[in-house]
């Protein structure tokens, strides 16, 4: 029996549109397990790489590791984790690990990546490698030679500053962040102000669509920004989905999230900076995220603004 | 046990100490009795009897450490203290009898422990 331990769940095969359908970055991508083709567990999506192009914002890669996670932990703890990571990293000027989206083969309960990415990612796990060498392999009965070649370890130390792509081929499976990239985490939780300056919420979700539209997932274009009065519970899955059960919890969470609103990302001013408040422009037409689901991809607001 | 500030609390301490001692003595008696009837093996009985003996020490100590707030409480302290001390002695004797594997001694211990437990239980009920 061929049993793999990645997300081999029924849903995937019945929804091939999954890959081109809208992706809620926080709910469906962030904090999910990354899995290799043979079921190997390769870390969580600790952050998402966000770059700007002429048309707006693109999610171009998964960020994995303590450097990325530290950005999402509260103040002193996050700084401490970052400092420890810098100190213990073998390279003199370490950069966070980014896995380009092109190497993602499917998005389900786990994010599956291809073999090259899996191998490259494994070689970035410093703690695992150190413990393997100094502790676990010293214990009697330690089996499972991973076949990590020196070449792969050398590759992990090579940190190019730009993604090198050859026409038609995939980029390097693991690289440093692109110039001018930042983490999606720099957007989440930031205050959103109405045109008149009143606080209307904090960013809780960014809904993306495939870019370019088609089969290969090279990047995701961020289309909508969702903000909420109460950040707690925003990752549960109720904000974007009006039918998520159970009934009692749904009703309570709906009351809690009744002031959630979604706007097209073009109407949000201030994303270029990584700190400070964001503001909606005059033409923004906020509506409740549950209304968005009905006309996802349409691009035009069909419902009157709330 | 917290230091008692009034008679009521002191009496509650006494009840608590007596109940613990009743529990320890009856457990020890039960273990010995079962061992004599060859219902439990020696290591098991020994562990239980020793644990009961070890348990009464702290009970005696913490009861004795509290000052009685009134003269009648002082009489109570002496009475209960004596009972607890007897219980401690008996539990030690039980352990010794078991280690010596002396059936007659053990049977005597069972009787004494049971009698002592009765008296302490009655005293405790009298106080509540």
């Amino acid at each position, binding site marked *: 029996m061929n*049993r793999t*331990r*990645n*997300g*081999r*769940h*029924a*849903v995937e095969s019945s*929804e091939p549109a999954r890959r081109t359908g809208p992706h809620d970055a926080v709910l469906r991508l962030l*904090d*999910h*397990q990354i899995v290799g083709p043979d079921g*190997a*567990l*390769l*870390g969580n999506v*600790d952050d998402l790489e966000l770059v700007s192009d002429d048309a707006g914002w693109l999610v171009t890669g998964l960020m994995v590791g303590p450097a990325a996670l530290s950005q*999402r*932990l509260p103040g002193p703890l996050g700084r401490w984790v970052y400092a420890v990571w810098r100190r213990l990293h073998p390279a003199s000027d370490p950069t966070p690990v980014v896995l380009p989206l092109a190497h993602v083969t499917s998005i*389900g*309960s*786990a994010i599956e990546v291809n073999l090259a990415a899996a191998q490259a990612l494994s070689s970035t*796990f410093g*703690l*695992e490698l150190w*413990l*393997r060498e100094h*502790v*676990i*392999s010293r*214990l009697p*009965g330690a*089996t*499972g030679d*991973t076949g990590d070649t020196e070449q792969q370890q050398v590759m992990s130390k090579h940190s190019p500053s730009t993604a090198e792509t050859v026409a038609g081929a995939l980029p390097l499976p693991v690289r440093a962040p692109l110039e001018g990239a930042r983490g999606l985490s720099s957007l989440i939780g930031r205050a959103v102000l109405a045109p008149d300056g009143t606080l209307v919420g904090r960013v809780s979700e960014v809904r993306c669509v495939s870019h370019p539209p088609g089969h290969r997932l090279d990047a995701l274009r961020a289309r909508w920004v969702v903000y909420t009065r109460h950040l707690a519970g925003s*990752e*549960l*899955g109720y904000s974007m989905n009006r*039918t998520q*059960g*159970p*009934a009692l*919890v749904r009703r309570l969470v709906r009351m809690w999230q009744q002031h959630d609103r979604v706007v097209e990302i073009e109407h949000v001013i201030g994303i270029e900076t990584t700190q400070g408040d964001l503001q909606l422009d005059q033409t923004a037409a906020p509506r409740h995220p549950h209304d968005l689901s009905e006309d996802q991809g349409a691009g035009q607001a069909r419902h009157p603004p709330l | 046990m917290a230091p008692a500030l009034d008679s009521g609390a002191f009496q509650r301490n006494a009840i608590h100490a007596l*109940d613990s001692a*009743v*529990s320890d003595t*009856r*457990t020890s008696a*039960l273990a010995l009795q079962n061992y004599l009837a*060859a*219902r*439990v*093996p*020696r*290591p*098991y009985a020994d*562990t*239980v009897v020793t*644990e009961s003996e070890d348990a009464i020490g702290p009970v005696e100590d913490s009861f004795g450490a509290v000052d009685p707030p009134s003269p009648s409480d002082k009489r109570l302290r002496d009475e209960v203290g004596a009972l607890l001390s007897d219980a401690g002695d008996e539990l030690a004797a039980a352990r010794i009898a078991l280690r010596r594997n002396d059936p007659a001694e053990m049977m005597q211990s069972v009787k004494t422990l049971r009698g002592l437990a009765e008296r302490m*239980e009655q005293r405790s009920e009298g106080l509540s």
Partner: protein
Amino acid sequence: MKKLFAIALGILTAIGGFVDIGDLVTNGLVGARFGLSLVWVVLLGIIGICVFAEMSGRVAAVSGRATFDLVRERLGPRVGLLNLFASMAVTLLTFIAEIGGVALALQLATRVNPYLWIPVVGAAVWIVLWRVKFAVLENAFGLAGLALVVFAVTLWKLDPDWADLWRQASRPFVPHDESHTTYFYYAVALFGAAMTPYEVFFFSSGGVEEGWTSDDLGTMRANVFIGFPLGGLLSVAIAAVAAVVYLPQGVEVDTLGQIGMPVGQALGVLGIALVLLGFFAATFGAACETGLSVGYSIAQYLGWQWGKFVAPLKAARFHSVVLLSAVVAVGVLLTTIDPIMLTEYSVVFSAVALPLTYFPILVVANDRTYMGRDVNGRLANTLGTVYLVVVLVAAVAAIPLMIVTKAGQ
């Protein structure tokens, strides 16, 4: 035929593996002090663990995600981290108590000082977790745990007043010499002993270890709905035996030796041998489960490779955590702390930590993109929601009750 055998094995393993040191100590203590007037809590806890184990097992089988993956996904890294600290602390506390329990059982068998046993047991648990295959581990200790059936046999042999026992159980009352707060404190403790958080980590991670798929849902449900309740009945038998032998004598039960003694009284030395085997299997098995669960929770939060289903060198961080936990557990126990007291605290703190893990499971079990058609039906949701409320009530009430009753004095 083979499938039937697998189901039977699973059920028997579930029965024998249900009881751990928390169930042994809490049921013995409560039976001796409150009779059977708190049995309703044990039943409540059994149904609750069935509901949530089935849900977490289903999520693991269908999506391949174990509990702590879900905690981080649905609560985010910050709340997830708090959750991780709390869950790991409780699981580690339970792990320490279980190892202590093994040492106590060995003392009863050999009269050798438990402090000499503790390092041996710690090393043995770690070696088993390092070398022994997952399925062998589960099956061996689960089946050996069936020896605890002696408590049911003992109860029958003691020929108690069944009518009186039934009256105690069916009309819950607070004994005249106990306060209401103490009664409810022990209700929370019993509930925490029946619905331990680690059970859900272990069950769902174990499902991934064993490579469950949607085809295995039937077997999984048989294990849960038949195995767990029968295992829970063993807990009730332990309480009933204590109620019959110790309650009339006013004896407070706070040692493992007291809990097992009635079995000798009824069944002699053979009974003692079986009950000691049962104690050993229950505590050693649970020590393995909690030790693994400490590793599972941190590995799943951080996305590390975990599990015994991969070769040890491929999961170095996971195995390092398990090794470290064993060392810490032995260290803590060697400070001469009383394992029984640790157990009593661990069950109450388990009750406090319950909602943290059950809530994400309930939410994810309702997520169609994960579960497809195996999403929660109405029954699962009704029970799941009811238990969410119960679990929250228990969690909120636990610490205040502990303070007011000074941990059950």
